[in-house]
């Protein structure tokens, strides 16, 4: 065991910070939140800048255009970057989920997307959830039927993050309804410009339309866009979701604690014993995530799947987010209830507070994570289920 940062990594961190200070805007000087389209454009431009300066794909294999370094280094860079205004948030699906999935399961042709993602040229979205298939994702009903060299897809997806801006999507559809639900699902790459795709934005209570409903009508997907084997989509999905969970808390939570301490000082309450308890709790939570991240990176470095660590990180991050934004709102008092341009701190705490639902739901609800942990960590028997072995078409709908 050795959790000291190696001299090489200390140097790497310093270099990252120096470069960021010269090329990015510190988070504390945050400007008013951008409209969503500008936010997306800024993220893509930022990815392009990172790529141009050699800071993109730090832990990607060199074969895919990356630097081939450790995942620890990538997370050091993310930690440093989290203290700046610039974010790759809108590229989470592309960089954090699609890329690892294509590296593991894609054909050489599909892997050509990797270079474009690295350059910030492609925004991707995820077409998994459906109105009738959320926590029970495997119940999805979107159908894909083979017609010559193409799959013809019909169905409806929901909670498509940034679907209105994406060029490509990863799509789960049912290719065989005659087998049990987990077994008849296939994983596709879909071109979001296909005329059969209609994306309808849903406005969230933050005022932004981050999510969309997506309607697929006779969407034609070439057979070469199947990722992995036909019918093997569920297994590939697991790679995507584990990647999602580890990327959610990837930048650490140190920035949020620093922000909270700053806010307490600014409100003249850093000496209030109640406030100090809240600050200390936030610090303790963030420490758990920081050190857990070291465990997670160790697992990756030693070629173990960091399943448990990623699940715990994700849960810890969601709880931290809820609790920290709650403390911030409490510090802001009545001012915290002002919104839009009237809100203090350019609405940043307010938006973070309202966004807590997204952190709790993203990558699976807290309850789903806890169920998995019960099975994985404690070997608890699965809940009895009536539908695991019945052909999907025979399930009551």
């Amino acid at each position: 065991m050795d959790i000291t940062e190696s001299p090489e990594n200390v140097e790497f961190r310093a270099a990252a910070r120096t470069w960021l200070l010269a090329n990015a805007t510190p988070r504390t000087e945050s400007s008013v939140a951008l409209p969503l389209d500008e936010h997306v454009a800024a993220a893509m431009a930022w990815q392009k800048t990172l790529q141009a300066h050699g800071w993109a794909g730090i832990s990607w294999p060199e074969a895919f255009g990356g630097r081939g370094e450790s995942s620890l280094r990538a997370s050091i860079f993310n930690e440093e970057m989290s203290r700046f205004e610039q974010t790759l948030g809108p590229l989470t699906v592309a960089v954090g989920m699609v890329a690892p999935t294509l590296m593991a399961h894609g054909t050489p042709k599909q892997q050509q997307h990797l270079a474009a993602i690295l350059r910030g040229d492609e925004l991707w979205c995820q077409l998994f959830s459906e109105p009738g298939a959320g926590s029970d994702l495997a119940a999805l009903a979107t159908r894909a039927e083979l017609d010559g060299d193409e799959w013809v897809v019909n169905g409806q997806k929901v909670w498509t993050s940034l679907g209105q801006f994406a060029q490509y999507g990863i799509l789960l559809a049912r290719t065989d309804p005659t087998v049990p639900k987990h077994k008849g699902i296939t994983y596709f790459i879909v071109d979001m410009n296909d005329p059969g795709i209609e994306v309808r934005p849903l406005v969230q209570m933050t005022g932004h339309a981050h999510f969309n409903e997506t309607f697929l009508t006779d969407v034609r997907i070439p057979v070469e866009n199947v990722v992995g084997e036909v019918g093997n989509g569920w297994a590939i999905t697991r790679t995507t979701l584990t990647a999602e969970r580890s990327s959610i808390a990837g930048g650490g939570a140190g920035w949020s604690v620093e922000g909270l301490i700053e806010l307490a000082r600014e409100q003249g309450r850093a000496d209030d014993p109640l406030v100090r308890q809240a600050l200390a709790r936030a610090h303790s939570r963030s420490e758990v995530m920081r050190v857990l991240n070291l465990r997670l990176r160790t697992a990756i470095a030693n070629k173990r799947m960091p399943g448990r660590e990623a699940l715990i990180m994700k849960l810890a991050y969601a709880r931290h987010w809820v609790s920290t934004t709650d403390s911030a709102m409490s510090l802001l008092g009545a001012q915290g209830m002002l919104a839009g341009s009237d809100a203090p701190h350019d609405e940043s705490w307010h938006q973070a507070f309202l966004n807590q639902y997204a952190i709790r739901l993203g990558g699976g609800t807290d309850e789903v994570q806890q169920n998995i942990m019960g099975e994985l960590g404690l070997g608890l028997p699965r809940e009895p289920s009536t539908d695991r072995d019945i052909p999907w078409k025979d399930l009551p709908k």
Partner: protein
Amino acid sequence: MNFDLSDEQQVVKDLATRIFDDLATPERVRDVCADGGHDADLWQALADAGLLGLCLPETVGGVDLGSGMGMVELCLITEQQGRRVAPVPLACAVVAARCIANFLPAEAELLARFVAGESIITAALAEPGRNDPFTPGITATTVDGGLRLVGDKPAVAALSQATHVLVPARHEDANVVALVETSAEGVHIEALVTTNHESQGHLTIDTVIPAARIITDAAALDQLVWHTLVAHCAIQLGVAEGAVALAAEHVSTREQFNRPLSAFQAVSQRAADGYIMTEALRTTVLNASWQCDHGEDPRADTLAAAYWASEGTQQVVLGAQHLHGGLGADTDHPVHRQFLWGMQYASTLGNASTHLERLGRLIAHG
């Protein structure tokens, strides 16, 4: 002792329920919140039904105070408002009108206009920072013919719609409350965007108020603050009720893994928790409103209710939203408004922590 509502109270509650159910539909609330955050039609309907004057003297068109209509009845009404998250400044306005009826009896004409729905009165109570409404940030100095008020107040309910606002101010060593016309010179109003999209405004003031419109009795500010707080608790009770009802319906009908969500204990127990919390809250709100009407000192009871209203309602609306999954944050689904309202009122006139701090001081020192 009888904790059940009287027949008259049940009539008030039923009437309010019907009006809010009929008029504060999710579609209407959405439209109003997108356009200023005050439902003038609903306000007029409340006036026409006699609900604005319910707790005011008969002489101004209200029901006689002697008949016993007071904060209990107002809370029955604001509870229904909260259940339907209807954007009207009921709590603040009715409490302000009662304050005028008590302390400025010469203003009968204004009250008559208020009861008829023609004139909205509000009160500037919220203070930034530590949320202590008893240390007003506006100062009053004696000048010829009255007091000159200078200062500003953030977050005044329905300020843009109000014709009058009660403004607490510090005058020498005491607090006074001034009745201010919003159209007066030296009164500046700026509309604000709030979390729950109800109309609120920022008041900046530098004007002279005649002595006849100044209340020097310290009881006025006490009554304004504690009664508004109780009426807000009832709003929160209604907000929680509405959230639990939406969650129960959602989890009973939405299926995953071939059964309704409610068949999973992680779901059903959280919904049940919301129900239990709401019923506990109802108990303390009814008690606090009763103490406002009949008790000697409503402070401890009000603070206990306000603590549960802040802390409990937040838990309930958070749980209800979570049980809705992604739908819970979607502005096309009504449950997100319960969330926003729960959060808004949990930080209005104090929050869970400041309520506990005040209550702790009261009880620890005996």
